């Protein structure tokens, strides 16, 4: 939804948004410049695709001297961010289910290969109960994922476990389907 809004905003403003600068990833910390030619990589995301279809005539604008800059880190980073990075939990549980083991291994492998890279595990809960207690519950989920990564050889300094408690639900609503999507730990690269 957020991406759709961004896309619409782009389309409305039409201020060079059609170039391939990825709006949702500008806040990445690495300052290594990326050659223009490399920008196509990882543009498979729905947001990027939507942006280029949203603004017809993007090519013409680029040829008028707009040099797109993407500060996204080069390499496999974009791929790992766009792949699966959310671990879901059962009600009142902090146990990592077997189906999420492969996801955690993928991220652990990536972090081992990029020793300078850091990730934050954000724990979340459904909206049942108190804010502070849910903050502690979300922390337990984040810690479970952090420990699983540590067992796979990721250095402690590379991963921080934090919690949002019930403050940032992925979806609104308090039926079981919505709540199941909110009980989660997200692996976030900052």
């Amino acid at each position, binding site marked *: 939804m957020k991406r759709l809004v961004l896309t619409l905003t782009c389309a409305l403003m039409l201020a060079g948004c059609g170039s391939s600068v990825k709006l949702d990833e500008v806040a990445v910390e690495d300052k290594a410049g990326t050659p223009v030619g490399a920008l196509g990589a990882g543009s498979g995301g729905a947001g990027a695709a939507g942006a280029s279809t949203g603004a017809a005539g993007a090519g013409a604008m680029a040829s008028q001297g707009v040099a797109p800059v993407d500060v996204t880190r080069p390499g496999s980073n974009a791929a790992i961010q766009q792949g699966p990075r959310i671990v879901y939990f059962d009600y009142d549980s902090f146990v990592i289910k077997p189906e999420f083991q492969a996801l955690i291994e993928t991220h652990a492998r990536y972090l081992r290969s990029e020793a300078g890279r850091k990730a934050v595990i954000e724990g979340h809960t459904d909206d049942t109960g*108190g804010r502070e207690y849910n903050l502690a519950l979300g922390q337990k989920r984040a810690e479970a994922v952090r420990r699983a990564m540590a067992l796979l050889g990721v250095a402690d300094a590379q991963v*921080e476990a*934090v919690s*949002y408690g019930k403050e940032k639900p992925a979806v609104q609503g308090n039926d079981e389907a919505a709540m199941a999507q909110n009980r989660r730990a997200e692996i976030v690269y900052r």
Partner: protein
Amino acid sequence: MRLCALCLLAGLWSVPAAAQLRIEVSGVGLTQLPIAIAPFRGQDTVLEKISRIVQSDLERSGQFRGTDLVAGSLDELSRPELTAWRQKGADSLVVGSVTALADGRFDVRFRLWDLTRGQDLGGQSYAVTQADLRQAAHRIADFVYEKLTGDKGIFSTRIAYVTKVGQRYNLWIADADGENARSALASPEPIISPAWSPMGGQLAYVSFESRKPVVYVHEIATGKRRLLANFRGSNSAPAWSPDGRTLAVTLSRDGGSQLYLIDAQGGEPRRLSQSSSIDTEPVFSPDGNTIYFVSDRGGSPQIYRMAATGGSVQRLTFTGSYNISPTVSPDGKSLAYISRVNGAFRLHVMDIASGNAVAITDTSSDESPSFAPNGRLIIYATSAQGRESLTTTTLDGRVKTRLAGASGEIREPDWGPLQNQ
């Protein structure tokens, strides 16, 4: 359509959460003192109707009931017709006046009468700006309340709360009746757990503005903020010691969520609890010797206490499988907390000495209780018609008033201390 809705919300967030307290008295056979508040002479010329503010303050306490009025104009110099007022059912009478001063301020004067004895119980005068007329009315209500009940009035105190409108969060400071709200902090990220310092000049709270929970201490008058706890992991649940020198916080820096003490000026935290479970939501007893907190060490969240220096732990709640958010009354005798009963989260009050506890609401998603500094009212957040709002209640649950915002959700109330007089 969605875009439109977002625009609308974006435009609304900066509007003060103009709030109005509605008094909903429930229950029968209440012993309430009948009091008449005559219209203050001259109050028609100013925006704030002093007599109405005084009356709704007193009624919100649950201990007073406004009576009908005798026709005619009175002020603090009048001698009321005792019989005529007593026939309206009133035991006490407040009369007064509002007069414009040459410097643009207003002189507010009043007098309180005991109608049964025909006795003048005293009065005061305040020279205030237009903006402080409400505050003058709250001070009159405090005076009347203290004279007639013997307890301190809390009408001139302040409350803090958080609103969420769209994706904007605001921390507000308002009068105890919810009026006169001013934003202390605006943020695109959540703000939770505001806690007033014992002297009332500062608030500690948890802000997610750096994309993780971090505890700040915020000086209200200047807006100056300092990081109190920004350790690896989550930092949350600040609670002040009664002397204001120390805060208890929940930190996950050593793995699980555990209790720590930290100097109010910052520095290295000292670990207080030692468990492999969740320990959180600490709160000091009024004498500073005990810390009440929530732990799931027994398999479900329950309320425990320990000495403020650490050590052995004693469990307080044994009914129900979910008891959280403890807060202790100013006299140290009662514990207010949230308990899940048949799936409904309800505000409960426990007599600590006997362990007897009762639910004092019939709502289903109560949160964050906080005692008024005189211990006679509790403010808490609850949901009504799917929208979060604040409610004050008497300790027996009989008199409730609802504070609903103009828009969005209102949550996380904390009642400030008595103002320095």
